[in-house]
């Protein structure tokens, strides 16, 4: 699949944003984070900013963005519609939660309830995003039991790493928070490795034989219906060389997981302000790494239409 930047950024940014929102909603509402104005402004601003930027980016991917409102109508069948509904619905508790925290300086009572609801909304939205991909049968790498948990785990992981950096930045961090984000990063790393391992060993029953209905033997593409690339090939015929893919996987591992792990371990061990600097660096590295991971998520996904083209 073509790794369009708009979609790569959208899923990465909203994943991180919803992860952060969910953690803030739960933790702040339950009193684990103090209702500090600046902390609230920055962290909720960042969460909602990531979410909004991501959603805007995805709207930029649309052919007719002015009709985007129509996407809320088909929630009964469409995960994309559900995502639209969930994402917009989540803005309501998230907004109340942010207002309560930032303007009323409280994270208890109705604000806590709003926080919890925002967290639920965030998780639900990430689930719908994951399900958009997980439900697509033509793409075996996505249509897998790894996809939905992956989205949730990566969302939680990047959210927690950002939250940790924010708390550290405001000097209200804790070893627990560092450890928590460290743990989630380890978990994410493991999940990604397991996903890759699974995808590399995929035995896909769909092949050129079933695609053409020609049973037995081999089916080799002789000539395409067109000699230049068309929409199908541009959108779904993306190919990535094995060597290139291996290199990007290594980069993903370093940036999204290994480096953040090292930095977070160091942050765990070192006092403030070193821990804050290291936590911030971990966030930046991981976000960059997750962009690469998401790019690969698309690039390594093989759509069945490519079978018709011998790709």
């Amino acid at each position, binding site marked *: 699949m073509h790794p369009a930047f708009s979609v790569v950024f959208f899923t990465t940014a909203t994943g991180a944003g919803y992860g952060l929102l969910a953690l803030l909603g739960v933790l702040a509402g339950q009193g684990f984070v103090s209702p500090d104005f600046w902390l609230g402004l920055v962290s909720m601003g960042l969460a909602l900013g990531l979410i909004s930027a991501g959603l805007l980016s995805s709207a930029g991917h649309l*052919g007719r963005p002015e009709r985007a409102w129509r*996407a809320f109508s088909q929630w*009964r069948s469409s995960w994309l519609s559900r995502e639209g509904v969930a994402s917009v619905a989540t803005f309501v508790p998230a907004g109340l939660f942010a207002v309560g925290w930032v303007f009323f300086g409280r994270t208890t009572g109705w604000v806590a309830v709003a926080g919890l609801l925002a967290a639920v909304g965030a998780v639900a939205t990430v689930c719908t995003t994951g399900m958009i991909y997980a439900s*697509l049968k033509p793409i075996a790498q996505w249509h897998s039991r790894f996809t939905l948990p992956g989205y949730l785990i990566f969302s939680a992981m990047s959210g927690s790493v950002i939250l940790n950096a924010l708390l550290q930045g405001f000097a209200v961090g804790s070893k627990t928070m560092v450890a928590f984000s460290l743990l989630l990063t380890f978990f994410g790393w493991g999940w990604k490795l397991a996903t890759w391992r699974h995808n590399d060993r995929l035995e896909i029953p769909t092949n050129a034989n079933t695609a053409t209905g*020609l049973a037995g033997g081999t089916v080799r593409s002789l000539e*395409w219906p067109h000699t230049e690339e068309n929409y199908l090939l541009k959108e779904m015929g993306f190919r990535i060389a094995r060597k290139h893919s291996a290199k990007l996987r290594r980069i993903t591992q370093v940036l999204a997981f290994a480096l953040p792990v090292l930095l977070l371990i160091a942050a765990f061990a070192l006092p403030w302000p070193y821990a804050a600097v290291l936590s911030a660096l971990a966030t930046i590295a991981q976000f960059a790494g997750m962009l690469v991971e998401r790019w690969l998520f698309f690039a390594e996904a093989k759509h069945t239409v490519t079978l018709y083209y011998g790709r």
Partner: protein
Amino acid sequence: MTCLPAHTDKKLGLVIDLDTCVGCQACVTACKEWNTGGYMAPLTDIDPYGGDADGVWFNRVHSYEHMTEMGGRTVNFPRSCLHCETPACVTVCPTGASYKRASDGIVLVDEDKCIGCKLCSWACPYGAREFDTDVGVMKKCTLCVDRIYNDNLAEEDRVPACVAACPTSARHFGDLGDPASAISQLVAERSGVDLMPELGYHPTNKYLPPRAHTPRAASVPAPRLEPVQAEGGFLGWVDRMLSH
């Protein structure tokens, strides 16, 4: 509404005979010329005279080499929307632009509702949908919905443009939901197949497999030729044949 109808009155679709298709592209351009002025008009062509020519087409013909122990065959393979019974391209649509008609089973796009998210094209395993970057909406085969019921066309012309044009008669049209229809009987007789049945889309369109290298192949039960057993060899034989 992108929820699928529980039942369609008819299952209109195409049957494509891979044993007969010579890959002439007649159906391809016939489709293009009808539809570029039809329900989904236009089928925009970007850079039509340049190096990156890329147009919207509803029907494309591939060619393959199919090698089995029985031998090789070149197979020309037309590919278009299969008007599936359970088309995920419809259910993934967030706006209701994609839908399956309850009356005849045709899968259509209502352009006015399409936001151009392209998800339907991702959900189609067959590559049946093509995005019109100029108009910003998804387009696809309509099974010539604006021909098959068109009062302004002679009754005999109310068939999809690709079927009307096909010079080798490799394309067939009808109600695949009616087991008594001519097209259903053709499928039964020739053991028509679904494409990618394992994905569970239940395509309405069927493909008739090539007969060469199968027990259905045309064959001539000819005994080996033996030299004429006659004095004087062949010329002697000719002589005797004429004297009879």
